């Protein structure tokens, strides 16, 4: 098979796999596929693409997108016990995008972008519309590079669809965006029957412009595609994991188009819960990041069949979980279907104060009252540093609330707000109206000073290898909370004609007498005492007697 060595081509692809045992009986598996294309994103027409997927490129070019982040997740990431993932994703579907500064109608581009993405990923992203999108002011700043001094938040849009499910039909087109698809390389391990049998499953696409080099005078286009999975040992049946148990097969070889194809196994927990890796790793890497040391075992993917097994040596200590610095929960309060409240509880386990930004994207059918916003930290009422609030309008705009808070060390902050239950028109209810309506998760962003239990990528990196020894001033986490479901009161769906008839009857009951009163005069008329039935009886009797008398006459004549 002829190999075209294209040295003049300007894009590079790398694939990595990270396997990390988590505190509880779970195993975190993360696939990271990164493409970097040294082209000018502003001028590229995406007609000739090499490794970069053309399907995505056409969408980006058509809708003038500067940055695109799409994620589909099933399950909830448990921050308290699992730490932080490499890339966060809210349960359901989440899309946010920055448009270029010369975009004329951002809302129209956003809607059509969502439609195109729904066709690309086989998800119902076409339900994203102006009435469930917000433009966050503080939370979703551009991840890529920008040349302007001022960031204008009118060019960003964020929407989440908590009801979306993620299944094989989303994985299939996602895999087709990879250069080797699922035929070779690490992507061949993505067998849907295995990777959906997990506690947490998420696929994501992140596209952004990055610095081409250190001088950062030119930009390149970077595409990250990732799959995050959290396996449960109970479902697998055993703690000794292997490629066969995780993916149903071994690895046949690297993707020929990738620059490097590596597998990392996080061995930091080997100290407390030791396990043995078979075959032996090619290399050991120690990463010191933000004051925390992690060790990794590294495997280069060989061009022949390989598989990694881990055998637990059975010498287990009792583990204590130290929860991460920041995690949050969200829930609904109240009873009945008239009014309720949303409470977001944020836990700061760090020994210092943390500055957080809480973003709530509340749908228009959950009208919130800002004057009922209460923030209690350890039971004491506090005022937030700032609030950005755009009230929603029914059927037009959701409620957009961003709260800037300073959390004192080792505290629990509880942000609560009241809302009313609304009554919708009967065709606005989904077919399963009594299932309820979803409220998306809140996004709590903070810059953590420490990188404990943190695996996130640095802002200027795209691969897992970039995150080794990547100490920075702050480590961005964006914690997503749970979704919530509220059951709105429903009308009787079988009643439209009945209701119309009854209401119109009442109107007629008013109209009739009033019409009579105003158009007629009161007069005295002789009382006709006979009732109707008596009248009929009299008439029948009269007719009968006439007939009888007629026949009598006839008879008498004869």
């Amino acid at each position, binding site marked *: 098979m002829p190999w075209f060595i294209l040295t003049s081509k300007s894009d590079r692809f790398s694939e990595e796999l990270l396997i990390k045992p988590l505190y509880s009986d779970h195993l975190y598996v993360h696939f990271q596929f990164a493409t970097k294309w040294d082209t000018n994103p502003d001028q590229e027409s995406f007609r000739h693409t090499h490794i970069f997927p053309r399907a995505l490129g056409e969408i980006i070019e058509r809708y003038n997108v500067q940055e695109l982040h799409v994620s589909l997740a099933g399950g909830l990431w448990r921050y308290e016990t699992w730490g932080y993932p490499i890339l966060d994703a809210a349960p359901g579907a989440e899309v946010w995008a920055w448009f270029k500064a010369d975009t004329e109608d951002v809302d129209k581009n956003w809607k059509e972008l969502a439609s195109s993405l729904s066709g690309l990923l086989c998800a119902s992203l076409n339900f994203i519309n102006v009435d469930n999108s917000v433009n966050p002011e503080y939370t979703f700043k551009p991840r890529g590079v920008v040349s302007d001094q001022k960031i204008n938040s009118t060019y960003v849009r964020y929407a989440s669809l908590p009801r979306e499910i993620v299944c094989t039909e989303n994985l299939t087109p996602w895999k087709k965006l990879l250069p080797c698809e699922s035929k070779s390389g690490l992507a061949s391990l993505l067998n849907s029957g295995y990777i959906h049998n997990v506690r947490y499953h998420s696929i994501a696409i992140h596209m952004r412009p990055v610095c081409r080099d250190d001088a950062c005078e030119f930009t390149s286009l970077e595409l990250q595609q990732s799959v995050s999975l959290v396996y449960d040992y109970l479902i697998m049946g055993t703690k000794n994991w292997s490629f066969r148990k995780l993916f149903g097969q071994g690895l046949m070889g690297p993707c020929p188009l990738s620059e490097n194809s590596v597998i990392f196994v996080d061995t930091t927990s080997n100290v407390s819960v030791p396990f043995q890796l078979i075959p032996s790793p090619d290399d050991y890497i120690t990463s010191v990041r933000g004051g925390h040391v992690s060790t990794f075992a590294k495997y280069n993917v060989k061009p022949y069949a390989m598989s990694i097994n881990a055998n637990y040596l059975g010498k287990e200590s009792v583990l204590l979980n130290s929860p991460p610095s920041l995690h949050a929960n969200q829930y609904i309060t109240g009873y009945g279907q008239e009014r309720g409240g949303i409470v977001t509880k944020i836990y700061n386990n760090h020994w210092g104060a943390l500055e957080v930004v809480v973003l709530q994207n509340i749908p228009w059918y959950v009208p919130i009252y800002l004057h009922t916003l209460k923030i209690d930290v350890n039971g004491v009422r506090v005022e937030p540093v700032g609030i950005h*609030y755009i009230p929603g309008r029914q059927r037009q705009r959701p409620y957009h609330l961003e709260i800037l808070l300073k959390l004192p060390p080792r505290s629990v902050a509880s942000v609560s707000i009241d809302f009313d239950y609304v009554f919708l028109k009967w065709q606005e209810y989904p077919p399963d109206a009594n299932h309820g309506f979803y409220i998306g998760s809140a996004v709590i962003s903070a810059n953590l000073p420490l990188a404990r239990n943190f695996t996130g990528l640095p802002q200027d990196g795209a691969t897992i290898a970039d995150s080794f020894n990547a100490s920075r001033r702050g480590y961005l986490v964006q914690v997503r909370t749970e979704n919530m479901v509220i059951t709105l009161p429903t*009308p009787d769906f079988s009643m439209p004609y009945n*209701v*119309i008839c009854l209401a119109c009857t*009442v109107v007629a009951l*008013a109209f009739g007498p009033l019409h009579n009163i*105003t158009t007629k005069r009161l*007069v*005295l008329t002789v009382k006709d005492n006979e009732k109707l039935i008596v009248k009929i009886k009299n008439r029948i009797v009269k007719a009968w007697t006439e007939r009888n008398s007629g026949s009598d006459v006839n008879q008498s004549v004869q």
Partner: protein
Amino acid sequence: MPAEKSEKYVENRPEQRCYKTGTILLMYTVGASIRYWLIFSRYQSIIGNHIEVSTPLNSWKRVSEGLYLQSKGINPYEGDLLHEAPVTMLLYRTLTQSLKLPVEITFLIFDIGTAVLLYFIARRYMFQLFVQQEESKEEYSEDSKEFLLAGPDFLNSPVFVAAAFLFNPYMVFNCVGLSTTVFHNFFLALFLCSMLYGSILLSTVSLAFCTMMSLSKIRAFVTVGVFILVMVSLKYISTVLSNGDAFIKNVYGFILTVPDLQPNIGLFWYFFTEMFDHFRDLFICSFQINATILYLIPLSIKFRNDPFLLTTAVLFLISVFKSYPCLGDVGFVLSLLPCFIHLFNYSQQGFLVGVIFLITTALGPILWHLWIYSNSANANFYFGVTLAFAIAQIFLVTDILFAYLKREFCLKNGKDRKIDGKDALLILE
């Protein structure tokens, strides 16, 4: 002269009591203290949260939200929670923040003020009735003299009106529930009072205020010129206050297009919940026409001799057919009923109406609770109760109007209902 005449009548009928001033003041005190006690008790939130008392138009929670947003520099009309006009928001802001009055006391003061105004309204109307009666005495037939009103009636009716307002549970709940219909009723009473006393300026100003608050009163204007002038100036002030015209869509567009389908005691909500989309505009138009202008002209022509009765009947119909009625509207017009004490002899459906009112008032909250909290009933139950309530009100108003016509006929033609010795019926044709 009228005062002398009334005293003469008092002398002629010593057996009928007149209420002294002391009794009246005691009545007001009791009414005020009932409200005071309830408003500061733990029942306030239950009453205030009930949908029959607070609708999207008059809920104080939404006004507080609007005031809070204004204080934070966010335009409250950007969202669609607030449906009060900017001028009224200014009024509330002045009352609560500048004057630092507790909200409950403000409501109490305005409610008692409305009661006082109603007393004067009734007194003035009774006086006018008396004058009219004296003037047209000779037109009446001989045997209908007993139907004429007498002195004690003239003096007692205002007391009954005030009592009907003070002790009416609808009005008590309206005040305790902190619904802004209290202010609305105050301005409405001011309008009625000034209309009866003949002061054009005050009546148009208060009517304009009323209209600003709620569109439906636009029907009953007195003098076009002054009214338009006042309306225009109020609109200008509103635009300046709210930095733009967004409030128009929120306030008047809201009343006219009925986007919020929260249940209330009216007919609109369930109708438009179940309505097909392509018929929506047609039915919105027809319902709004029905609520506002349909009965205005015919009733004005027929009852031109008694404008106060006309106004009361129009207010009744508004409170039945408007898009977001509440108990305050119904209670206000009910408390005006004792003015027409002379018509009660002719009304036929008093018992029926009274019973339906009792039953629906009791049943409404129960079925609401079953639907929303217990999840065992459904929306149809509550809808049925609101239908019955509307029917009761309709029966009441048609009965009163019909009674008026019958009384006029009897006064002119006598009590006897015989033509040539045969029994005759009084019918409309």
